[in-house]
């Protein structure tokens, strides 16, 4: 297939989602039929999933260079471009896949709620924002899509606005999130003041003494500008990624939010923030002679904060009585692992980080949805009150157990395989090898925490009448079984998956030259009157 058509597939996905998000409330004014809103949303998210799957297939089989889509045919750096490589295409597939499962799950989960056209509007907005963040090749467009993602998230946390806890959590989340996006905006001011461009490929080129057409050489002190920019980016995206000590919003936001959103946010939205950090630290600034000490310093900071996140998450997971809060602390723990992998700054560390990112995305979505199914049926989040409920829901309990074991790192499930890669990556480093102790101890604590949840829900004697409780509806169980199946399959085919999917994606993240030259060639072709 032609590269232009493949690039259009990438650009179409966020556009389709955001256009549908605008259409849906209008549709809701005309047609008061929730089945239509649900069908409409399901059609859009399925179409996006198919497009992203096609994009991944083509990028992995037919193209080695990133693909460029220029909005309005304006060449970079004048116009906004999407620059999609294998890593961003893989993230896109994960995003659309999880949004599809969350939408199917929502059909029954949100049955008792009103104003569903707005719920699905926010869900589509969230998908558009996340896809835009991973596909974009423009730092300012990233800010815009980050806001689209964030505002949808705040709305989804506050969706059940009759619950005071949800409103309080949303306000806190919005205030903290607004600080993060403002800090990123300030970072962009420094970047523009220093480099005179906000195109990501142009930034990468200018750091290496080259430039895209139109813009000239950097305007300011590149070392100082890069240091301030990266420090601010690091701070703001560590907040979005819930890395300690910027993690406080997460355990408050998820318990109050509808479970499909918690599954999406914990499963993929925080990963989008991590992916943006990877893009800046490895693809754009990584390997640039002037930025090497800055990136190195931030890598050490990532390791330190990753260790802190793993310890804080695994310690607090044991204390929780609220099942969703317990799972939320597990996210902080696993974001710590991903940060630790990134911090190594080499191929094996980033392979472990990216594989764990995919595995945690699937496993965490599974856990939140399974917990959501249990809460939906039992009507409580308190582990003591959920005692024995799991026995009445064998399929949901099985899915929950598989997700918990995967995230705790039980072989042969996917979480174990990525933790093993992280473990070996640290052993290879030499002086950082003692940190494997942190991985082992926090994994054991996580296992205890997840086992506590499973024990309460499944093995304990009921403390109230649960005779009327039965298995969750099929549309809720089906996504759980799909995700549980993925946890098993990805574990069993881990060697093939890492070799065929993760490693090429990691190589594309390290390919500074390929990322920059793809945009340069594209821009030069347009300026010469091509395309």
């Amino acid at each position: 297939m032609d590269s232009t058509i493949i690039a259009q597939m990438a650009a179409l996905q966020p556009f389709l989602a955001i256009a549908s998000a605008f259409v849906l409330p209008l549709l809701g004014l005309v047609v008061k039929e929730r089945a239509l809103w649900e069908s409409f949303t399901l059609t859009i998210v399925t179409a996006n999933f198919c497009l992203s799957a096609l994009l991944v297939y083509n990028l992995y089989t037919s193209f080695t260079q990133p693909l460029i889509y220029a909005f309005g045919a304006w060449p970079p750096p004048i116009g906004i471009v999407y620059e999609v490589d294998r890593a961003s295409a893989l993230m896109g597939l994960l995003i659309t896949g999880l949004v599809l499962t969350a939408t199917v799950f929502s059909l029954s989960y949100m049955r008792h709620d009103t104003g569903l056209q707005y719920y699905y509007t926010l869900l589509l907005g969230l998908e558009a924002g996340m896809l835009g963040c991973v596909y974009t090749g423009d730092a300012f467009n990233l800010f815009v899509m980050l806001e689209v993602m964030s505002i949808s998230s705040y709305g989804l946390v506050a969706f059940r606005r009759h619950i005071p806890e949800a409103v309080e959590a949303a306000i806190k989340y919005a205030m903290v999130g607004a600080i993060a996006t403002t800090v990123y905006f300030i970072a962009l001011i420094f970047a523009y003041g220093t480099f005179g461009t906000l195109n990501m490929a142009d930034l990468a080129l200018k750091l290496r003494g080259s430039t895209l057409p139109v813009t000239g050489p950097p305007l300011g002190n590149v070392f100082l500008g890069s240091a301030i920019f990266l420090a601010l980016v690091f701070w703001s995206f560590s907040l979005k990624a819930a890395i300690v000590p910027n993690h406080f919003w997460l355990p408050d936001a998820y318990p109050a939010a509808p479970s499909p959103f918690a599954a999406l946010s914990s499963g993929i939205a925080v990963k989008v923030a991590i992916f943006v950090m990877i893009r800046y630290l490895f693809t754009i600034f990584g390997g640039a002679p002037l930025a090497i000490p800055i990136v190195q310093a931030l890598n050490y900071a990532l390791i330190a904060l990753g260790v802190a996140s793993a310890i804080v998450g695994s310690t607090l997971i044991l204390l929780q009585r609220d099942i969703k809060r317990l799972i939320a602390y597990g996210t902080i723990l696993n974001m710590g692992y991903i940060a630790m992998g990134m911090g190594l700054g080499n191929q094996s560390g980033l392979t472990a980080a990216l594989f764990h990112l995919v595995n945690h995305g699937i496993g965490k979505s599974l856990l939140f949805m399974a917990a959501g199914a249990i809460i939906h049926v039992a009507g409580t989040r308190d582990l003591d009150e959920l005692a024995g409920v799991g026995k009445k829901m064998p399929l949901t309990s099985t899915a929950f157990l598989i997700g918990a074991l995967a995230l705790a790192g039980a072989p042969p499930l996917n979480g174990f395989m990525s933790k093993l890669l992280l473990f070996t990556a640290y052993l290879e480093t030499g002086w950082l090898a003692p940190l494997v102790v942190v991985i082992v101890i926090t994994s054991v604590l996580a296992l205890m925490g997840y086992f506590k949840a499973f024990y309460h829900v499944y093995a304990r004697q009921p403390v109230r009448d649960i005779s009327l409780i039965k298995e969750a509806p099929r549309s809720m169980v089906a996504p759980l079984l799909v995700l549980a199946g993925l946890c098993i399959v990805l574990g069993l085919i881990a060697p093939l998956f890492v070799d065929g999917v993760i490693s090429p994606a990691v190589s594309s993240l390290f390919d500074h030259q390929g990322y920059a030259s793809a945009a340069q060639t594209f821009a030069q072709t347009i300026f010469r009157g091509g395309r």
Partner: protein
Amino acid sequence: MMSLLASVLEATFVITLVLVILLIAYGLSVRATRAVMRSSEEKRRPFACGELLRPSETGVPDASMYWAIWRKLFRSLYNTLRDKIHTGVLSDWLFWMIIFMAVLVIALVVMMVWAY
């Protein structure tokens, strides 16, 4: 690295096979002893003032005992982590977030001095 993952998969397959055999053996033994258990079940029913109690009301569950000991052991750590840091108050969160920002700025200044 790939060979390591493949070896782990092989080992896991063997462990799973052994576990399945053990589980089948356990299931068979439970089935064989079920009749004996049934005959003595009535003797183990808890009563208080002549009323039959539900098992959950008869005492502290074993799991609660376990977690009580765990919490007792790490009380000071939990007090610091939960009650002093994770207070749920927005201004407390901002305090830690600003400290993180300050540390980043200081690290930046140190790095600049070191680099020049």
